[in-house]
């Protein structure tokens, strides 16, 4: 009897512990910088001497530069940028071309349509240009093409001279969001929210291909098999291979919801989504070599040393560390970098010639930098987890006892020990099991509900974005224009911040439980997503790209 209760009461202690991994053991914390408010939504940038980080959302959107010891050198803010800035920073080496010469610079695209070139050493503005805004401005990844930079604007694509930012031409495509540009010898490729893949030649003539796979929210990737697109639809995604020669889709590989930005090294591609990380090998055709359950929706970092990092975009979650053996195996281990919660920014790795550093940032607005211990010579501190060891010991005792009792014919005692063993296992795996089960169940049996109707009083900029409504004292408080949130908790948190509502709740084994919103507790809160009542926890309930979430006090 004592064994029964002792084992059960140890379980919560164990669940709170994170296991140590090979990466944790070979890297040590170097420094951190807390921006206090705002998100780090895209990867930091290393320019050779400075580490640049962009932050936005609930704080003045800015780019901040640090030296390698973590001292802030400069920052450049853009108070007019009102949405989350997520266009990746682009480092440009000094050069010259037909339209002039330019110094080393960093290009920054803002959601108010502004594009700036700044000096990485002091943040001084070199030139700027304004692009069009339709709710949002620039959100995608730039690309360099000799003396030009190709900028994905909200409604099209433009070619700008690196020397002075002068627009050479601009061509309208489709409405885009986080849609990066890819450059090849024929010109440029870019996707849009309507699922069209656009080809633009170097004089600005555009041709579109309606792939009908879903929203294209990354720069297309060139492979030997064709152009790879990971397109997002409401409840799933598709990895498509497009042959530009005959304008046909040659492959469609089904994948999970809310895809991450795919990354490429030679003929290998890594993709991610809310269900899996996977690696593909693309020669004549693309073949999925391996996939591992993991929830990631933003950028993926794949470095020259073969290390792959992906932020897990979940509440209280950690980072995923993956390695590829060069054959067909992708291995995964969680890593502890002291940053938990939502995140979509890839880390960056850089070296000062002595040690290799890895910088992580996420939605909490904290930048943490780790250094490689093998090179810096620091000895890792061992972290002995008594709770975990006790549980493992207890489980071995139960397993061993079950076997011995079975062999000695003591059936009743065998059933007792084995049932306790199974119970502990099920209690431990239940959070993950129920989460995965709910996802599969939702995919198999999508709910039919009357969707929330568009309110004519809402601004047009909210069209096609995520919106949250709070019902309080007979009034509706709404905020919209959100994008990229994959679950209801993340979307609710950002809406509460915008409306200056305090959101309190607690994380339970069944998921996140909202206790009060704006001080209103009542007997709890209920939510619906697109008219369908929420029946699982708020962090496990999916939010889609145009979801309307409604909160009602009970």
């Amino acid at each position: 009897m004592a064994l029964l209760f002792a084992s059960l009461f140890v379980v919560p202690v164990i669940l709170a512990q994170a296991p140590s991994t090979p990466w944790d053991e070979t890297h040590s914390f170097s420094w951190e910088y807390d921006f206090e408010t705002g998100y780090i939504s895209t990867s930091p940038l290393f320019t050779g001497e400075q580490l640049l980080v962009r932050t936005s959302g609930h704080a003045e959107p800015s780019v901040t530069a640090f030296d390698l010891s973590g001292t802030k050198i400069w920052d450049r803010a853009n108070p007019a940028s009102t949405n989350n800035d997520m266009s990746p920073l682009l480092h440009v080496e000094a050069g010259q071309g037909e339209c002039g010469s330019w110094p080393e610079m960093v290009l920054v695209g803002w959601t108010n349509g502004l594009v700036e070139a700044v000096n990485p050493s002091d943040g001084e503005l070199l030139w700027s240009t304004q692009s069009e805004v339709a709710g949002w401005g620039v959100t995608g990844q730039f690309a360099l093409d000799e003396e030009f930079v190709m900028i994905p604007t909200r409604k099209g694509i433009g070619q700008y001279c690196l020397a002075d930012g002068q627009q050479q031409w601009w061509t309208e495509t489709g409405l885009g969001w986080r849609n990066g540009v890819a450059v090849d010898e024929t010109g440029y490729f870019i996707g849009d929210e309507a699922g069209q893949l656009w080809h633009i030649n170097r004089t600005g003539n555009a041709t579109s291909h309606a792939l009908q796979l879903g929203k294209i929210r990354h720069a297309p990737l060139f492979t030997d098999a064709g152009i790879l697109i990971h397109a997002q639809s409401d409840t799933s995604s598709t990895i498509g291979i497009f042959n530009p020669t005959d304008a046909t889709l040659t492959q469609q590989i089904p994948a999970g919801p809310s895809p991450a930005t795919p990354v490429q090294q030679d003929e290998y591609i890594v993709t991610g989504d809310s269900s899996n990380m996977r690696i593909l090998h693309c020669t004549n055709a693309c073949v999925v070599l391996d996939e591992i359950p993991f929830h990631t929706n933003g950028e993926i970092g794949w470095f020259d040393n073969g290390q792959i990092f992906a932020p897990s975009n979940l509440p209280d979650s950690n980072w995923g560390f993956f390695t590829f053996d060069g054959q067909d195996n992708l291995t995964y281990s969680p890593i502890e970098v002291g940053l938990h919660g939502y995140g979509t920014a890839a880390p960056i790795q850089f070296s000062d010639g002595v040690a290799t550093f890895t910088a992580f940032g996420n939605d909490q607005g904290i930048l943490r930098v780790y250094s490689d211990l093998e090179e810096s010579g620091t000895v890792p501190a061992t972290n002995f987890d008594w709770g975990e060891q006790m549980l493992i010991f207890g489980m071995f005792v139960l397993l061993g006892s079950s076997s011995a009792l079975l062999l000695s014919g003591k059936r009743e005692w065998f059933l007792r020990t084995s049932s306790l063993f199974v119970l502990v296992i099920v209690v431990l795996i239940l959070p993950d099991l129920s989460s995965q089960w709910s996802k599969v169940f939702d995919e198999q049996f999508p709910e039919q509900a009357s969707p929330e109707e568009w309110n004519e009083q809402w601004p047009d900029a909210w069209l096609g974005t995520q919106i949250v409504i709070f019902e309080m004292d007979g009034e509706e408080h709404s905020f919209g224009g959100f994008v990229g949130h994959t679950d209801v908790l993340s979307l609710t948190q950002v809406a509460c911040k915008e409306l200056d509502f305090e959101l309190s709740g607690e994380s339970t084994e069944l998921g996140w439980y909202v206790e009060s919103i704006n001080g209103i507790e009542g007997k709890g809160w209920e939510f619906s997503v697109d008219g369908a009542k929420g029946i699982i926890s708020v962090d496990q309930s999916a939010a889609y790209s145009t979801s309307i979430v409604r909160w009602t006090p009970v």
Partner: protein
Amino acid sequence: MGVHGPTLSPLTSVLLDVVLLGCAFWLLAKPTKRPIFDSLFMVTLVLSVSFIRVVMQPFPNVQPVTVAALLVGAQLGARRGAAFAVLVAMISNFFMGDGWWTVFQAAGWASIAIAGSRLSLVTSTGLNLGRACMASIIAAFWFDFIVSFSILDGTIGFTEFIVYLGHGLPFDFLHMIGNLTFVLWMGSWFTQLLEEDPSLEEIEFTVVNGHGIDG
């Protein structure tokens, strides 16, 4: 977290508690007067199991009360089993959160206690372990099914209800494994604990009745 069922006003909550308490006392009332010791035993039993339920709260859907209701019904009969179920639901929910769902939890456990009294789980040699295990597995799903009705507040359709039940299957499975573990570890001990010693009147009645037949 999600669905809560209908909201009760303070007055409705009090009325509901009064009705539940009334049911429990009506079930406990018997034509023959029960010794004070029996009543004290029932009170201790109810408080202990309620306390265990509150303590086990961190483990989602590991429900010792289900097995307890089954065995109390089997050993003490349907009336006292159902009363036990209603009182445990009320007292433990006083600490864990009271509401519309208390009615369904009380109904679920009471129905399990009644089933326990009809299933011949206890024989002259003690607890029939195989039968008790089977009953505890079915009881887990039955209880979760009954409690699921508490979400019906007029806004949830049949399909949504089925989806809700489907989402809960991993928790039903855990309830089932928990029940099995409780039966295997504590079933026989708990059954013996509940075994009633015959009163002096009952012994006398048996003896006299036996002599009467003999005579």
